[in-house]
């Protein structure tokens, strides 16, 4: 990535990684850490919903689409029905137009194709007004 990696620790942002893939969990957790964003990791949409039911709340949710038990589309819909207003960014390898549209319509604020990189994450943060790129 050209340029410096921003440090957003002072902004005290929090994030939730929702992904069933262990390698992606590790990567996305570290990506957020690197930008100074405290984050938790869950394995599927149901766990994301359960986390919110238990009272946890996050500024940003990175939501994978294809997961067992409850996928990203179902989880996004459910969270919005619950009144969760966190910014949700869909992150998936499935980027066909139809699938992307369905995912966006579930209630996403942004969308990025995997693999996630520092640049893509910074772009998400910029698009969702968490970070102003200079």
């Amino acid at each position, binding site marked *: 990535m050209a340029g410096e990696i921003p440090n957003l620790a002072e902004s005290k942002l929090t994030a939730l990684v929702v992904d069933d*893939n262990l390698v992606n969990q590790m*990567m996305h957790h*570290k*990506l957020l850490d690197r930008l100074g964003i405290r984050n938790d990791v869950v394995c599927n949409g149901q766990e994301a919903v359960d986390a919110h039911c238990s009272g946890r709340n996050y500024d940003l949710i990175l939501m994978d689409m294809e997961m067992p038990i409850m996928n990203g589309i179902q989880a996004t819909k459910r969270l919005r029905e619950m009144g969760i207003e966190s910014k949700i960014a869909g992150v998936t*390898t499935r980027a066909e137009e139809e699938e992307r549209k369905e995912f966006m319509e579930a209630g996403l604020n942004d969308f990025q194709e995997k*693999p996630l*990189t*520092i640049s893509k994450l910074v772009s998400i943060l910029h698009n969702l007004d968490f970070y102003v790129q200079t």
Partner: protein
Amino acid sequence: MQRQVALIKQSLFDQGYLDEQFMELEELQDDANPNFVEEVATLYFKDSARLINNIDQALERGSFDFNRLDSYMHQFKGSSTSIGASKVKTECTMFREYCRAGNAEGCLRTFKQLKKEHATLRKKLEQYFQASKR
């Protein structure tokens, strides 16, 4: 020694085993996590060995459940993409195409090649990480 490490790494890129996503992993390595790349690679090989075993067992049973096989390979491709395992990713993509076409012979042939690429990458990365520690 540093030069040897650099040469090993360059050959991995030149021979197409790794792509630019691997450099994204290296960007995430810092003083707080000095072995991050190796840790991710270790997790990848552990998780992908499990997936290979699952696929092997499914193929040995003889009845080709293409949906299940595609689901395993979706996981495998996702992890491979995230760490920049280019050749493995290519074989994953081909395998999934054969699944969608219901082509059992294609699946078997591609899976054999995938295992070969996976084993080669594992060996080369082990050499790279060992050389990096000297």
